[in-house]
């Protein structure tokens, strides 16, 4: 399993320098690591759309932001993504944990788990899913895509990929 610490380092090595979000168990250690680091800032947000708003402000002030959230948070930040990021062309990386994957999870995760990819397809936000072998490739590619296209990109993270 990929270490959360190495995952954080990979994001930073590729140019991400501002982090915010709302926790999920899957990224618990990752957020702890980002919070404890002195070389970057992690801002705990109260809600996912607030995280997207703060990240957008950070981008306009010269940072390259990554927002961490559970897929339930996608619903919460849909208006921010559509009426802020997509129309102003404000990039940010969305690291979204995929709860409810293949219907194996608590009931509250099942609907979003089934539709989260389709939801982003409908909105027009490109997305990819981490597997144990593509972590470095996806993080590296994400930076190029968001900064060139000036748009958000989501990377789904299932349980069991990082520790």
């Amino acid at each position, binding site marked *: 399993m990929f270490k959360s610490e190495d995952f954080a380092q990979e994001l930073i090595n590729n140019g991400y320098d501002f982090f915010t979000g709302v926790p999920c168990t899957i990224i618990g250690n990752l957020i702890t690591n980002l919070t404890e680091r002195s070389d970057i800032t992690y801002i705990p947000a109260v809600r996912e759309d*607030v995280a997207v708003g*703060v990240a*957008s*402000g*950070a981008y*306009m002030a010269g940072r390259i932001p990554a927002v961490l959230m559970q897929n339930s948070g996608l619903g919460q930040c849909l*208006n*921010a993504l559509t*009426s802020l990021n997509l129309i102003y*062309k404000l990039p940010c990386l969305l690291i979204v944990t995929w709860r409810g994957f293949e219907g194996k999870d608590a009931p509250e995760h099942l609907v979003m788990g089934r539709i989260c990819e389709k939801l982003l397809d409908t909105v027009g936000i490109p997305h990819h899913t981490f597997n144990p072998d593509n972590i470095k490739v996806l993080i590296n590619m994400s930076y190029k895509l968001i900064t060139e296209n000036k748009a958000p990109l989501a990377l789904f993270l299932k349980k069991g990929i990082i520790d």
Partner: protein
Amino acid sequence: MNYRETITAITELLQDQLVVCANGLISREAFTIRDRAENFYMIGSMGLASSIGLGVALNKPSRKVIILDGDGNLLMNLGSLPMIGFLQPKNLLHIVLDNEVYASTGNQPTISNVIELEEIAKSAKYTYVKKVTTNEDMRREVAYTLENDGPSFLLVKISDKAEQREIGRVTHSPEEIKERFMSAVN
């Protein structure tokens, strides 16, 4: 006091401060009164002006960042206030134009005629909180908070709610607004 005279008075006191304007009449008035590259006009994402302003303020500590917000916007995203209070950006000034209605959609009431927004800001640990009801007090407090560290919160009570004149929309595209603002920030 009405929107126009309040935003005009604030604008007259500005130099190179960055201003994040909430959607609706606030952005439209600010644009019409004096368009500036330092203004970010939020046209959608209602509620998020304070979050966007916080993101700018945290990453540009050398610049004063003003959030020009409304009561409807503030109430939609109260969670932003304790984040600002927790993070304590000294360069952040949050001005709320409180007319107790959703003016852009035809003056439907909010709940700020009963709920004291300045008390919420105090609980959220802004370091300086004032409520003003007259033009004179508003000018004095804006001048003071522009010069002093925050995070500060100014609640400006807008008494003239009858005002419903036609006002133009922001004519720049969202992308132009962003590009211009970023050039002014960086």
